């Protein structure tokens, strides 16, 4: 629109405006299509889960202590807790490690080493989850089992997931640190603040919105991860009471049983999917709020 104001030819002006309008319409249509797709998916999940939800089955999610769909028991709550526990554990491990490697890459590492390290992180991010799962099942689980049987446990799932989301945390944190204005650090240095102070008191607080939203993005990935968790978590439906106890995540529940499920059992699995989607939406909303409430560069204020 700014462009057309400078344009003297009314014909050209109208043409440009029309093109602009058409483009806006096309983009709105495409964006609307994406939003519609999400609504359709949610609707589909709701429809498929309805045989169970509609008959008051959602009360069974909390009431029933166990998940035995063939015997009419649909206790989903332990799996929600397990999914959250696995995700939380993975974030608690991956966030300090990822942030530390981001700080190292941004402030301390010589350029060649930093480039090599970044390459390594990208490689780690590219390893398929089933490979992590296989490694966990054949190496990590026996190791834990020799110490605290059965080995397949909340801890194994947390360790494997932490490794999987570490690159996401490290790369987004590094990007957030790199996006800080150069004069911010220069100003801190000019004030005579030590290197440690510059990083801990200036750089990290200023980049915290990017770091936190990166961590939430990683949490979404951890929550949705299926194959690796299925292979190492033990898949017993129970509240996560100990690090060494086996648990079943919502995703693993769907993957383990979907191929074999019929009728209400199937509806129960779709209900798991619905809950999982709602959890992911909640996390995404949180991430959006964090970015809104702490705009980048707020340290200036």
């Amino acid at each position, binding site marked *: 629109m700014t462009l057309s104001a400078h344009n003297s030819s009314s014909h050209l002006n109208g043409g440009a405006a029309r093109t602009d309008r058409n483009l806006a319409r096309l983009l709105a249509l495409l964006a609307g299509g994406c939003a519609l797709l999400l609504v359709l998916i949610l609707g589909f999940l709701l429809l498929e889960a309805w045989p169970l939800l509609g008959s008051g089955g959602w009360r069974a999610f909390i009431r029933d202590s166990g998940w035995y*769909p063939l015997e009419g028991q649909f206790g989903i709550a332990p799996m929600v807790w397990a999914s959250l526990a696995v995700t939380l554990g993975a974030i608690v491990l991956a966030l300090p490690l990822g942030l530390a490697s981001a700080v190292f890459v941004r402030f301390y590492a010589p350029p060649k080493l930093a480039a090599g390290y970044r390459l390594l992180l990208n490689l780690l991010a590219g390893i398929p989850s089933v490979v992590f799962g296989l490694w966990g099942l054949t190496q990590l689980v026996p190791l834990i089992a020799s110490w605290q049987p059965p080995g*397949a446990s909340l801890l194994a799932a947390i360790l494997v997931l932490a490794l999987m989301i570490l690159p996401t945390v490290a790369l987004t944190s590094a990007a957030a640190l790199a996006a800080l204005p150069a004069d911010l650090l220069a100003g801190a240095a000019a004030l005579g603040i030590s290197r440690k102070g510059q990083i801990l008191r200036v750089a990290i607080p200023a980049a915290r919105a990017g770091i936190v939203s990166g961590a939430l993005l990683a949490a979404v990935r951890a929550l949705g991860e299926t194959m690796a968790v*299925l292979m190492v978590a033990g898949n*017993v439906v129970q509240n996560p009471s100990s690090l060494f106890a086996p648990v079943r995540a919502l995703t693993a529940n769907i993957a*383990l*049983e979907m*191929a*074999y499920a019929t009728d209400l059992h199937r509806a129960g699995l779709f209900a798991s999917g619905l809950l999982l989607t709602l959890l992911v939406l909640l996390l995404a909303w949180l991430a959006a709020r964090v970015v809104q409430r702490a705009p980048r560069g707020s340290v200036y204020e």
Partner: protein
Amino acid sequence: MMVFTCVPGPGRLQKKCLGKTYSDKNATARAGLCRAAVALLGLLLLLASQSLWAASQRLVLTGSSTVAPLALEMAKRYEQQHPGVRIDVQTGGSSRGILDARRGLADIGMVSRALQATEGDLTAYTIAMDGIGIIVHRSNSVAALTDQQIVAIYRGQIRNWREVGGADRPITVVNKAEGRSTLELFLQYFGLKNSQIRAQVIIGDNQQGIKTVAGNPGAIGYVSIGSAEYEEQRGTALRLLPMAGHSASVANVARGEFPLARQLNLVVVGQSSPLAQQFIAFAQSESVRDLISAQFFVAP
């Protein structure tokens, strides 16, 4: 059926196509276009009928992941002997095999157990037998377990191998996920309900079970004897336990002596197609015996 031909008109500049007469100066060109369209339509119809004919020579099998590898090998050999036939084999569990056969999504369902009373609408053809064997880690010193001991272990009443004559080591009970036919057979044989079992690990397929037991000296699980025997021979750290005095081996399943065995069935609903009938007859014939033993199953 309509006749798609172009009839030349009587006049010099009159052309006919599909009963319409073209008589203006572009008659030749327009009638030519019409003829081309008709020819294209004819070609499409021909192609469609061809693919329809091909579809009648196509067979879809879905169901049990235990039966699928065997059915796939049989299908390959059948396709070799009958060019023009295409057989699709898809897995998804015995429940899906029954569901797809009933809904008509599959011509033949694969089911790794005998049919239940509620499944009287289906006809089953046994193509092989498979035994379910109890497996423990190779280092486990327990030589055998009675049925009562196995039940007590799976119900969480016996929690240490010491109580059944083994080393002082906690027992890791490995169970299968809900809906699997191996689980159904196991529960049925021992008279258990799934909610009575206190498991420490729940697995999906046989391979996951084998890897879990081989990686945990205190584990006990149950998988298809064929796959366990194969892994045992390859040196995987597991051991099959005998049941009721019969050693868990493919040979004993063949003799019908092993108590915990199941049928591998092909099931159809009502009147199946001639091709499905032919394939089932082929799968039960002598000419696939080598395929059955190559997969560590037992011919019925």
